[in-house]
Structures are given as C-alpha cells and as structure tokens.
C-alpha cells in the first residue's frame, strides 16, 4: 500500500513551553506566534497558506489571520487531533485540493488558572452525552480513571507491575533533563514514582502527565514544493487512524487500543517494520498509555510491555528512544498533546535536537492518542533518505 507515501512533507514546525509551566501569550495570539514561527522555519509566508487545520475552530482561526483557505479541517479527537490533521492534510495535498497547510494548537490551562482568566473556550459538546447517564454519576476521575482501569486490567492479565510502569516515567524524565523547556528536569527513580501519592489506583502522581501551558504549529506542503524550502523536508511516509469507543465503559478490551489498527495501517503504507523506527513519539498521558502503544504498535508482543521497558531501552542511549522531548509526563501537557509529538519527530529527523539528538535518525513515528484510549492516529515520518 503506497497510498500517501512520500507525497507531502512537514516543512516548518514550532513549539513553546516553559519550566515554569506558564507562557505569556494565550489564545489566538499564541497560535499566531506559533504559526509565524513555523512559517519562518519553512521559509514560507502567510500568503502561501491555502489550507488550515485546527481542532476547535479552523474557521475562526482563518478569520483571525485574514486568510481564505480552500482546505479546512476542524477534526477534534482529543490528543490525536493533530496526527489526524497531518493525515488529512497529506491526503488533501496529494489530491490537489491545496498546497500549503498550517496546523496549530495553543492551550494555557496553568496560567489561565493562576491569572484567573478564562480560556478561549472549546467547542461545546454537541449531540447526546451518554456518559452523563452511564459514567459520570459513579465518580470516575477524568481523564485519569479510565487509564487506571486499563492499568488494573493489564496487570491482571499479564502480571504487569507498578515498578514496570514507573520505568517509563523514569526514562521519560531522563530525556526531559536534556530539554531546557521541560517543566521537570530533575532525574527521578522508580522508588520515587512509587512513593508519589496514589491517585486513581494503580496510578501514582508521577505516572500522570502534567498540566502546563503549551503551544505548537506545523506547516505542510507537497513533496515537490518541499524540496525548495528552507529546511530539509520531513516526508509523510504513512498515516493511519482508528477509533472504537468514546466512553471507557464501551471499550471492547481495555488492554488493546485502536492503535493496533492505526499503527499497522500506517506502518504498511510506509513500508516499514517497528525495528526500523529510530525515534518513537508515543503519546504518554499516563505511563500505561505509553506501554499500551509499545505493544499495539508492535515493538513488543501484547502483554510484554512491562518487561520491555524495565531495562531503560526507551531512555537516552537505549535501543528505542521514546518521547525524547520529555513527553507529556515531564516536558509539557496542555491537554491535547499530539502536536508536540509531531514537532519533536520533525526536529529529530532534521538533527536539530542538540543534547537529546538521536544520532542518524531517519524514521520517526508520532502516535497520537485521543480521549480515553479512544482514537489513535499514527504518522510515520522520514528523511530524504527514506523516499
């Protein structure tokens, strides 16, 4: 399945976060700053843009920027929205619907709280909400509770331990020590993770992602046009998406995510196997989330994620560098973190990551996870050497 392989490329990226957890700008101003930075990174200008993606309001964004795109996408699947935006943009560019697409995300939950200002407001829930009837009354903490339930079930079926989950937090923090923008940069130990307060059992505080301000943007264009731009193109080699539930109580098997399908389809389109992946950016809302991704993407067999991460192979110097920016666990997590997976993957493939650079990285995977293990979207990216 060649599909979209190598037909479009990410040509500009930007992201921002801070060790304080807070950013100065917010809302559209922050989005516009990210777009300006990503366009400059690409060597393009706003007048080149003819496609817009935004998980809340592509129309509102275009209006704010004063542009009139011929491709628009407001797909909202939670944290995987941005991987889907890349997938859709790649398809639209390949089909000739548009040529230059921007995607952007900005969210400032931490400073909104400390400065007492309201957010920009999300898209209101539309349509029926069965969770109000069949989940909310039981007091499941969101979004932590559903992931805790997945961890309990995984432990029951496969003997996975809290120590093994803690190894993911430890390896991810080790990466964060190499990212000056990361919220937390002090190394941690397995014992410290296990000693952190229990939240929704079996998850401890350090099994959980941050709540920080953060923002990012990307620019995509056709492979032909990409070759003439400022930076080496990072080609979209494969893309796949799948979702199977909205409420955790409707998830068929809490140990298998729809990533088993999105990943297989994306890898097939790219023509790669897991062992060829140099950098894995796998959404780590919680340690269990990353563990399930490792299994469902085929880096290890189902049920073997615990032993797989125990030797630190996903940390610096390991055989499978995972979440090299410090992840949602230690870098930043403004709510829908999928944008940061893409930005870091692009920078790794360009060799721009300084002390955390994975030497010779040619293939990176950005695997977004949305809502409560609900919607997975997998993007395989490659350097010019891969096309």
């Amino acid at each position: 399945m060649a599909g979209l392989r190598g037909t479009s490329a990410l040509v500009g990226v930007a992201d921002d976060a801070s060790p304080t957890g807070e950013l100065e700008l917010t809302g559209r101003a922050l989005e516009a700053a990210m777009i300006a930075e990503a366009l400059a990174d690409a060597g393009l200008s706003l007048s080149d843009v003819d496609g817009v993606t935004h998980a809340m309001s592509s129309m509102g964004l275009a209006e704010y920027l004063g542009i009139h795109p011929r491709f628009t996408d407001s797909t909202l699947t939670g944290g995987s929205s941005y991987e889907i935006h890349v997938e859709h943009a790649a398809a639209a560019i390949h089909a000739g619907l548009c040529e230059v697409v921007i995607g952007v995300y900005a969210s400032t939950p931490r400073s909104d709280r400390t400065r007492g200002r309201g957010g920009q407001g999300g898209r209101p829930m539309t349509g029926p909400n069965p969770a109000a009837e069949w989940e909310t009354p039981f007091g499941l903490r969101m979004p932590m509770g559903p992931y805790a339930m997945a961890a309990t079930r995984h432990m029951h079926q496969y003997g996975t331990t809290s120590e093994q989950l803690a190894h993911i937090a430890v390896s991810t923090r080790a990466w964060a020590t190499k990212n000056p923008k990361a919220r937390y940069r002090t190394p941690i130990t397995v014992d410290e993770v296990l000693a952190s307060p229990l939240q929704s059992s079996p998850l401890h505080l350090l099994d959980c992602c941050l709540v920080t301000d953060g923002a990012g943007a990307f620019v995509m264009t056709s492979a032909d046009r990409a070759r003439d731009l400022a930076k080496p193109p990072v080609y979209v080699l494969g893309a796949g998406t799948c979702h199977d539930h909205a409420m955790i109580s409707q998830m068929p098997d809490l140990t298998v995510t729809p990533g088993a399908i999105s990943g297989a389809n994306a890898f097939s389109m790219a023509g790669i196997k897991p062992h060829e992946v140099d950098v894995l950016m796998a959404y780590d809302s919680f340690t269990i989330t990353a563990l399930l991704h490792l299994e469902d993407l085929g880096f290890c067999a189902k049920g073997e994620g615990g032993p797989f991460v125990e030797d630190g192979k996903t940390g610096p110097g390991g055989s499978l560098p995972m979440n090299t920016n410090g992840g949602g666990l230690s870098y930043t997590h403004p709510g829908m973190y999928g944008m940061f997976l893409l930005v870091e993957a692009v920078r790794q493939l360009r060799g721009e990551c300084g002390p955390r650079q994975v030497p010779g990285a040619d293939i990176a995977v950005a695997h977004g996870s949305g809502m409560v293990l609900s919607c997975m979207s997998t993007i395989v990216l490659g350097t010019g050497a891969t096309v």
Partner: protein
Amino acid sequence: MSPSPEGQRRIEPPVTTTSEPFWDATRQRRLLVQWCIDCGRPIFFPRDVCPRCLGTDLEWRSSPGTGSVYTFTVEHNAQTAGLAAPYAIALIDLDEGIRMMTNVVGCPPEEIYVGMRVTVTWEALSDGRNLPQFEPV
C-alpha cells in the same frame, strides 16, 4: 457510599426518553437490560436501535444483576461531589453479556479484585430513583 464531608450529593444521572424504562424500574430496585429481538443479544448502554443490526425491535428484560469485576480503580484523591475517597469504580461484566460502569460497595476497596463475583445493590437518588451499585456476593 457515604456523602462527602461537605454534604454535597452525588451527581445524579439525567433521564432520556430512551432510558426512561431503565430508570423507572430502579424505583422498584429492579435492574432492566435492553435486548434486541432480532439479534437475541443484550444492549448497553440503552439505545433506540441495535448497535449490531440497526434493528428497532427492542425490549426490556429483568436482569439477575449478577456478574464479575472486569476491571476497577480506587480513587484516592476524589474531586467529585458526593463521593468521599477512597471509593471504588468498576466495570462489571454482567452474566448476560453486557458491561456497565458502577461503584463496588460493601467491602473495603483493597479487597476488590478482577474477577470478583458481585451482585447489584441500590443507592437512593433524590427523586425516588435508585442508582445501581454492586457488592460482593
């Protein structure tokens, strides 16, 4: 399940026209499950069409209210009105073949395990309805 120290009540479920028979039956502490007559299979959450065959010939049947714990979590840092930590939330696989979210009550949370056999019990809501909860058999 005891109210939180603030005395706030638990968030109570709304009723839709689709689910009205379910909630009405809870007034008599009866657990109803929706079945598709065409497929012969149970449906949860309640719908207007069968999620397998899109059939609309559905009926409500009494459930024995027995099942086992598929998975659970114990909330240690509650942020929900009306629920005092620690408390347990579980997904229960009912014996007729549906899965529902609920609380497990009637035992210390640390005694709950995956596969534990449970049976339905009820917690009064403010309007005469009852909320299904499960306790060890």
